[in-house]
């Protein structure tokens, strides 16, 4: 790690101002050592826009979203940097102030809607609760609002289904109900953490469509966290690729899908199943496993798994690459020169995809 990594004088550019995360680090001290789940992450997003955060398990995606929501247990995580939501710094704000913003200004949809909803309360009850925390209204009014929300997310017969329990819903319906709950207070920022991972493929597209439609309706900023590039291809305006708690590539969806420059992004694209390819062709998995976040590899954390590591003549083993703008706000953290990267993409990677 070099000193230049954390100089605040040269903040990495963000692609939006409504939510700005600047140089966020989230470390968890454990008995085995400090887990550096997020290590110097910077990004931003505007209202009405969608940011996709992509990466393998353990790359720090969910930890990032939990930090924005202020959901890390106090005392367990050391958080530094800034999380500015519409100008308010959530890192330094009091826990109670963050709590009051939670659900109202920022809301979250979780991966598994069955375990994310309380099995002992009706769906309506849980939406009513979410609404009444931030709105001083009668239960009758809140109930009408809950029915309205269920209707808007496409639950048939919301008048009746409002009194059903989560286990009486199907998986897709439950996720719709989760979305209704998250949107009940009309949040400015919606974070969807793997919103379709636990769902049937047929239902996934419906849920993604729903999120897109509702985003237009509510004009909220949306962060989609996923390991599935197919999901962000559907929705995202911008994409942030995370590896070992750091941003390795960050740019518009066009940049990431059409001219990706980081070897890790190439790997993600190569391991994506495609229907428009012959079935005889093999997927191109990224070899190796994600690194330990306690002993992050020296230099570029991706170098042990990188096929092009020797191109840097050992630099990748020693020095952490900075996230640099290669033009048009397309940021890449790689020691190879932009020309070299573009050439490899054109000649070696793209033809195989």
């Amino acid at each position, binding site marked *: 790690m070099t000193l230049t990594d954390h100089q605040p004088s040269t903040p990495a550019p963000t692609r939006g101002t409504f939510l700005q995360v600047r140089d966020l680090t989230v470390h968890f001290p454990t008995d085995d050592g400090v887990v550096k789940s997020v290590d110097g992450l910077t990004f931003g997003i505007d209202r009405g826009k969608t940011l996709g955060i992509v990466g393998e398990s353990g790359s720090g995606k969910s930890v990032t979203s939990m930090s924005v*929501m202020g*959901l890390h247990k106090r005392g367990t995580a050391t958080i530094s940097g800034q999380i500015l939501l519409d100008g308010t710094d959530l890192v330094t704000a009091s826990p109670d102030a963050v*709590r*009051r*913003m*939670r*659900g*109202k200004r920022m*809301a*979250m949809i*979780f991966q*598994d809607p069955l*375990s*994310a*909803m*309380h*099995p*002992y309360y*009706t769906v309506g009850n*849980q939406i009513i*609760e*979410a609404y009444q*925390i*931030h709105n001083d209204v009668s239960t009758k009014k809140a109930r009408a609002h809950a029915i309205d929300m269920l209707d808007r997310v496409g639950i048939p017969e919301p008048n009746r289904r409002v009194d059903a*329990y989560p*286990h009486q819903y199907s998986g897709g319906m439950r996720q719709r109900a*989760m979305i209704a*709950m*998250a949107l009940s207070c009309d949040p400015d920022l919606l974070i969807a953490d793997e919103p379709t991972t636990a769902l049937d493929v047929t239902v996934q597209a419906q849920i993604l469509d729903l999120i897109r439609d509702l985003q237009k309706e509510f004009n909220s900023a949306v962060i989609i966290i996923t390991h599935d590039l197919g999901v962000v291809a559907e929705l995202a305006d911008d994409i942030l690729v995370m590896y070992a708690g750091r941003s390795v590539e960050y740019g518009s969806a066009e940049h990431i899908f059409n001219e990706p420059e980081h070897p890790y992004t190439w790997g993600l694209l190569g391991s994506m199943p495609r229907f428009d390819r012959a079935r005889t062709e093999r997927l191109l998995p990224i070899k190796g496993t994600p690194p330990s976040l306690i002993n992050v590899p020296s230099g570029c954390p991706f170098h042990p798994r990188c096929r092009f590591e020797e191109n840097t003549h050992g630099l990748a083993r020693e020095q952490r690459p900075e996230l640099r703008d290669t033009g048009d706000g397309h940021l890449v953290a790689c020691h190879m020169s932009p020309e070299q990267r573009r050439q490899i993409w054109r000649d070696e990677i793209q033809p195989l995809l």
Partner: protein
Amino acid sequence: MFAYIIRRLIAALALLVLISIITFSIFYLVPRWAGATPETLATRYVGRTATADTVKLTAERLGFYDPFFVQYGHWAKTLVLGGQFDMGAQKVECPAPCLGYSFITRQAVWPELVDRAPVTFSLAIGAAVIWVVSGVAIGVLSALRRGSIFDRAAMTFALAGVSMPIFWTGQVGLAFFAYKWRIFVPGGTYTPFFENPLEWAHDLLLPWFTLALLFSAQYARLTRAGMLETMNEDYVRTARAKGLQERRVVVKHGLRGALTPIITIFGLDFGLLIGGAVLTEKVFSLNGMGKYALDGIVNNDLPKVLGVTLLAGMFIVIANLVVDLMYAVVDPRVRTT
């Protein structure tokens, strides 16, 4: 649901018949295996200077010459229909439900049990309130402050609580609170609730706390384990993500999720206690059903033992049924409709 309850009640009835047969056969068979004859059995229930004739008469009067099922049938019949009892000098009419007469005191069992039930109920209910409230509260706080000094102290207390027997804690309690500081009477007194509620509570406080100590320790551990699990559930994270105050997250979402096993255990414990808290009643000389049963056992007084066993069995069976029905109330996933 209604059919289910009816089915369960019929099964409960069958179970009670089984319990009574087993209790009866223990009293009938075990002495005979050891070589007892109707006469030697009857000697226990007559005076020390009785003649052979009186013994024989008593054995006849108590029906000891009859075969097992005739004796049991007679007991069961009088229970349901009532019947006449030969008390030697005169015959006594015993209306249903008739649990017979004590071999020793010649008092009818049923009215005595009815007399003693309020004592046992009062003891069980008061102790239950104390142990549920304190056990759950300690368990929740321990889980929330896992590893803290409070948690360690509470769990040490819980371990001590389950390890210390009532006959010891009860004596220690009596020694200090009754004899040394004279805050409570040294037991033996019971004031009916409707006569003087304050006096009622004052008489029972020490037994309550002694009995509750044992249970609250268990409940604290149980609640702590449950809370540690539910507070890590996704739905608790969802509740926080909604912006709910932490206190309500803990109580409405965390504790609610951890309550099911607590309710189960509580139903069983309470059912058991209502059948008589033998040790507590003995230590504090409370004339409840537990002490009644103990007297019966010590004196080989079959009608007393059978009466209490049947009643206790009934309470346990009912408690089980209530617990099963409560499941449906507590956990909507169990509801069939």
